[in-house]
């Protein structure tokens, strides 16, 4: 991959910082009246997902990172890797527990997830903002109680446990916000 100098850092450019592939979010050129110029760069580490800041001397360069994002269907977990398949090329990808991270609890077979590939290896698996999952276990619902507050835990088909309103029953389909892990609404098949 080519090297990119600070003046080429644009939003969306993928580069390697501290050995990890990163996505540039912001690049601010700062220069005192007389003296060394700097670039303050905000970036997301694509392995950890963390947003960080780093200051570079202007003119420094970083190696580009061969990073792409694909949509792929979740197939199964063999205990070591989670397997995914590209719906058109049928190419299969195996993601480590590290790459899957917290997304594991939203993984449902046949559903589609975003996989970030670095040198063709999955480094990050992200769920869509909302997923629809079935309740497999929860205490019996309270009939008629649809208005008052109060919540109870419910276990979903992927194993995730979320807080749900009291009226939710086993077998219900729920729309969950994966960013907060919270119940959003009931859903239809």
């Amino acid at each position, binding site marked *: 991959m080519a090297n990119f100098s600070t*003046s080429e850092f644009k939003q969306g450019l993928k580069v390697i910082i501290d050995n990890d592939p990163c996505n540039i979010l912001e690049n601010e*050129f*700062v*220069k*005192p009246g*007389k*003296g060394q*110029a700097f670039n303050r760069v905000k970036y997301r580490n694509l392995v950890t997902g963390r947003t960080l800041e780093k*200051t570079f*001397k202007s003119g420094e360069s970083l190696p580009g990172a061969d990073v792409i994002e694909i949509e792929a269907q979740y197939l199964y977990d063999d205990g070591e890797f989670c397997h995914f398949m590209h719906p058109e090329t049928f190419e299969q990808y195996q993601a480590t527990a590290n790459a899957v991270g917290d997304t594991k609890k939203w993984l449902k077979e046949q559903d589609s997830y975003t996989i970030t590939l670095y040198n063709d290896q999955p480094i990050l698996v992200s769920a869509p903002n909302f997923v629809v999952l079935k309740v497999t276990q929860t205490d019996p619902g309270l009939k008629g109680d649809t208005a008052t507050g109060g919540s109870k835990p419910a276990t979903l088909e992927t194993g995730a446990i979320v807080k749900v309103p009291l009226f939710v029953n086993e077998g219900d389909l729920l729309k969950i916000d994966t960013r907060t892990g919270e119940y959003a609404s009931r859903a239809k098949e």
Partner: protein
Amino acid sequence: MSWQPSASLINIRARAEVLAKIRAFFAARDVLEVETPLLTHSTIPDPNIASFKTTLNNKNLYLQTSPEFAMKRLLASGTESIYQICKAFRYDESGKLHNPEFTMLEWYRVDFDHHALMQEMDALLHALLQTKPAEKITYQESFQKHLNIDPLNCSLDDLRTCAQQNGLNDIPDLDKDGWLNILLIRFIEPHLGFTQPTFIYNFPKSQAALARINDDVAERFEVYINGVELANGFHELSDTNEQRQRFIADLKKRAQLKLEQPPLDEYFLQALANNFPNCSGVALGIDRLLMLYTKTKAINEVIAFTIDNC
């Protein structure tokens, strides 16, 4: 991609207004407007300033980064106080506050020291932006006030520790001036010039550039409004030998950094040796001034066509 200007019509008119007011300000004070070349055979050796280069008859020509050397030749020839509004060019400087081609107001006042020139700058800012009378603070006081460190009498380690204590852990290896600059940018500049313009003056002598050094500090100043540096001025060095030594030191730094070695401006060095008057001079970024005048946040809102659409 758009053929249309990035600046609004209102801001394009504001530029004309501001330029007319500046010319009126100097006409009333009997300061002569001059023009000097944008293309020159030599350029500043400062390792932190990069010039655009072209050629004519196999000789290098540079787009000026500031009209300083040519204006000083005029001063030595006896013009008395002068000003110029011109384009200046800095390679690879681009951002919210920078465009590689920008407009500069530069003026020189014979028999002014840097304090007298700061006073005149304050009057100009008041005339253009209706600012309150400026505050003045030395470079040393600004560091003591905001960072509790003495920038003139501290070590490289002190500066690094100070940066770390303030949460700066992401900085590359820097020399002492590099650390001073980053601390100034991150922790001092953001506080300057919000109720009135702030002058920072008497810089470390390692950052003298073309200013005189007196009592171990450089007679140099900068002006800030709303946290943005607007102008940089000097009580001008008039000693041609010292000027040459500073240029040579700059060329050595450029060699270490593997940067081009431009020829020194011998005309300028000769002018300093021939009746160069006691004077102070300052350069002000017109585009940033216009950002304040029009209350805009980015330089492309006041420049019709920036590097991104020219």
